């Protein structure tokens, strides 16, 4: 490990804003995409299920 302390790690030699701005936005968008894909899948399953039960009635 090449960091003396956590504060040094977050500071990133003065580039903290740029490095963590890049990593943070990437992490945020990946998590948003995963969440969005999950919601879309559950909604589509619910749609298919409701149409199936309407047909059966």
């Amino acid at each position, binding site marked *: 490990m*090449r960091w003396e302390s956590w504060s040094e*790690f977050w500071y990133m030699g003065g580039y903290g804003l740029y490095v963590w701005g890049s990593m943070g936005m990437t992490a945020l968008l990946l998590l948003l995409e995963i969440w969005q*894909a999950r919601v879309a899948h559950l909604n589509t399953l619910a749609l298919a299920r409701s149409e199936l039960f309407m047909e059966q009635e």
Partner: protein
Amino acid sequence: MTMRWFYYAAPQTFYGLAGRLWPWLAALALALTLAGLWVGFGLAPSDAQQGEGYRIIFVHVPVSWMSMIIYLAMAFWSVLGLTFNTRLSGMMTRALAPTGAMFAFLSLWTGALWGKPMWGTWWVWDARLTSELILFFLYLGYMALVSAIDDVRRADRAGALIAIVGAINVPIIYFSVKWWNTLHQGASVSLTRSPSMAQLMLWGMLLMALAMWAYTLAMVCYRVRTLIIERERHTDWVQALPEVAGAKA
């Protein structure tokens, strides 16, 4: 062999295959991300010229690669779709687009955050940056077009044309740093010469690139299943799925 490919190209069989694949790919993506972050942020030395700021490349280079590769994959599926008229092709192209758009945006975002401290500017109208911006707009254009046409098969064919014609932009992005005098630096990794970076930096970048590959494949497998259910929900096989019909015998 050809029979086998067409067998898996049927939405019904691909739904099952993708369902078995995505959890493994997701786990692989997570493991590779953790390894890549450990190498990139824990082990790799600081750069002689750029200090710690260079660490942005551990995400910038992989997302930029993926933004180009995903567009080429969309063009590939589009050619198959127009040639063989397979149902799956259009769904694969659509499943890829949001992830590709996200990576293109991240390429621009992380590039801007690198440009500000290193070049003194968030943005320049340089060949590399401009062609990547066009790629981002091509993704948005594709998604807007396919969602604007109600008939899905017609939408798929129109989208396929954008995907194929737009693919010409990908080699332009890739070779822009050679063809024009750009502010953007040349490739750090090339097939023809040894990489111009330290071993650990290279490993960090390659692990992150593999992680993004696994993430993309997992996401496509996941999302294509949503599209398959949406389009085939009136068929017997979808209505017989336990996740649709409920857990009845």
